[in-house]
């Protein structure tokens, strides 16, 4: 399998960087055996450190916009060629009703397509996990599906399925399904051998082992795949609309371009970027809620680093 995901590397904030601002762990004083710890305590201020981490990114983004603004204004470039960010923002505000009206179908297509793709990925990955021959039959097919150029496929799908919601759902599913499917299949395979053996020795059957061990083991992989998928989803919907739709950000961009309004094209691009970022943030949030033990892991590392006696004893 060519594509692989490392759940430890994905995400906006690496787990190891998240610890620096945590509350004080249990004191090492009064422990007769290094083995005994006091029970874990909750309550940390990870939010502030996350905000602090975001500062360089925000600065870089602001710098880029400023340079663009100055270049557009002082370079004597026509707004019909390269509008300044301020103009894009102002036009976006003036056309906010039209933008919102067109964003709604895009959001609907994105969410519907993504939900279908998510469901399909879970069902198919589980089937493939239980039936090895099916896996050998399906995976090459799925990889082949990723070689289809979207530009060529989108108009065909619209030709076959019309201008409604269905072709959009299909295109969003096509671009988002694969990363999640591969992530799940790899995640199942990453189940610790000892855990499966132990469950079998306890008397658990295949389905039990899948539910108790393989599925939870796949979660970090799944979320890594989900984060990748979700960044494709909005783009997939826009592509589908570009190929033909009554309403949507894609068709809005197309007509703005045909009317020589790059400022409105960019305004629609900004809306789609914000959508993608919001979905990405949602995915990260869901992951943190679904996998609370991951926070515990980084909390432990932080406490250990702090209560290292050799570091404390130094004058």
């Amino acid at each position, binding site marked *: 399998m060519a594509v692989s995901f490392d759940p430890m590397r994905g995400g906006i904030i690496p787990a190891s960087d998240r610890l620096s601002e945590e509350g004080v762990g249990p004191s090492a004083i009064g422990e007769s055996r290094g083995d*005994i710890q006091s029970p874990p305590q909750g309550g940390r201020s990870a939010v502030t450190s996350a905000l602090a981490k975001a500062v360089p990114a925000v600065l870089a983004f602001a710098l880029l916009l400023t340079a663009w603004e100055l270049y557009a204004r002082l370079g004597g470039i026509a707004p019909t060629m390269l509008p300044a960010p301020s103009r894009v923002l102002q036009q976006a505000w003036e056309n906010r009703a039209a933008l919102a009206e067109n964003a709604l179908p895009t959001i609907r297509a994105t969410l519907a397509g993504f939900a279908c793709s998510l469901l399909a990925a879970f069902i198919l990955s589980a089937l493939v996990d239980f039936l090895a021959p099916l896996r050998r039959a399906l995976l090459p097919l799925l990889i082949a599906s990723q070689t289809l150029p979207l530009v060529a496929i989108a108009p065909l799908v619209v030709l076959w399925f019309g201008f409604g919601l269905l072709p959009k759902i299909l295109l969003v599913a096509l671009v988002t399904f694969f990363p999640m499917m591969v992530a799940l299949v790899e995640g199942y395979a990453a189940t610790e051998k000892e855990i499966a*053996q132990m469950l079998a*020795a*306890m008397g*658990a059957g295949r389905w039990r082992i899948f539910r108790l061990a393989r599925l939870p083991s796949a979660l970090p992989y799944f979320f890594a795949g989900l984060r990748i998928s979700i960044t494709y989803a909005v783009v997939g919907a826009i592509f589908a609309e570009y190929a033909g739709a009554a309403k949507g950000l894609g068709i809005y961009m197309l007509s703005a371009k045909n009317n020589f309004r790059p400022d409105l094209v960019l305004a629609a691009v900004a809306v789609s970027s914000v959508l993608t970022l919001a979905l990405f943030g949602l995915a990260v949030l869901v992951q943190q809620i679904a*996998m609370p033990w991951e926070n*515990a892991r980084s*909390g432990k590392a932080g406490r250990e680093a702090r209560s290292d006696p050799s570091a404390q004893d130094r004058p």
Partner: protein
Amino acid sequence: MTRLELRDVRKSFGALEVLAGVSLDVGAGEFVSILGPSGAGKSTLFQLLTGALKGEGSMRFDGAPLDDHGARFAFMPQRDALMPWRRVIDNATLGLEVQGLSRRAARQRVAPLFAGFGLAGFERAWPAELSGGMRQRAALLRTVVQQRDMLLLDEPFGALDALTRAAMQRWLETMWQGNRWTALLITHDVREAVLLSDRIYVLSARPARVVSEVAVPLPRPRTESAALAREAAAIEAGILDTLLGQPIPISRSSDGELK
């Protein structure tokens, strides 16, 4: 009374011969260790016992062939195999849940044991929040609450630092004295085997066979007196000589009269 009885158990993976005829017995309430170098095939033997692998030879429990695999043994794998996504108490109840108990009932059965395993207050912690020694005790708790006929412990302390390991060995000795589990322990730590076992089977390197069976007739607890420590050290030295293939002044079934 003999509970587990293995006769000439063999296992090969293709051309790789791993177990070349292992025979051993474990009696009721007896603590027996299998001591052997890494890669000898010790974990493979446990996989045969739990039914994860099929081999040749006879394996009997209470006189009957071992075919309804799994039901007899509570198995603790080589790494602690705690599920990071389950809280400590839910890891401890895993075997009971697989046996069909509700999560609630299983928790009620397990919760009173936390203090004895040095885990009081950590019921709701995640495994990642535990130290190495605590993880091993949690894994051991998960193993013994299954209330099977016999414990299979695969190098339970192999991954711990020396100090923690020594503390855990003493703790396990105390626990075993209180419970008298029938247990088969895999280890490559000679001192651990002598401290904990009634008898020790010493395995050769792969393909593994039993090269020596050593009885350890020392009273317990064995960590108390200096005299006991000296006797234990003599047994250790004898086993080490066997393992390292040197001429050995130790008889096959030692009865404590060691040089």
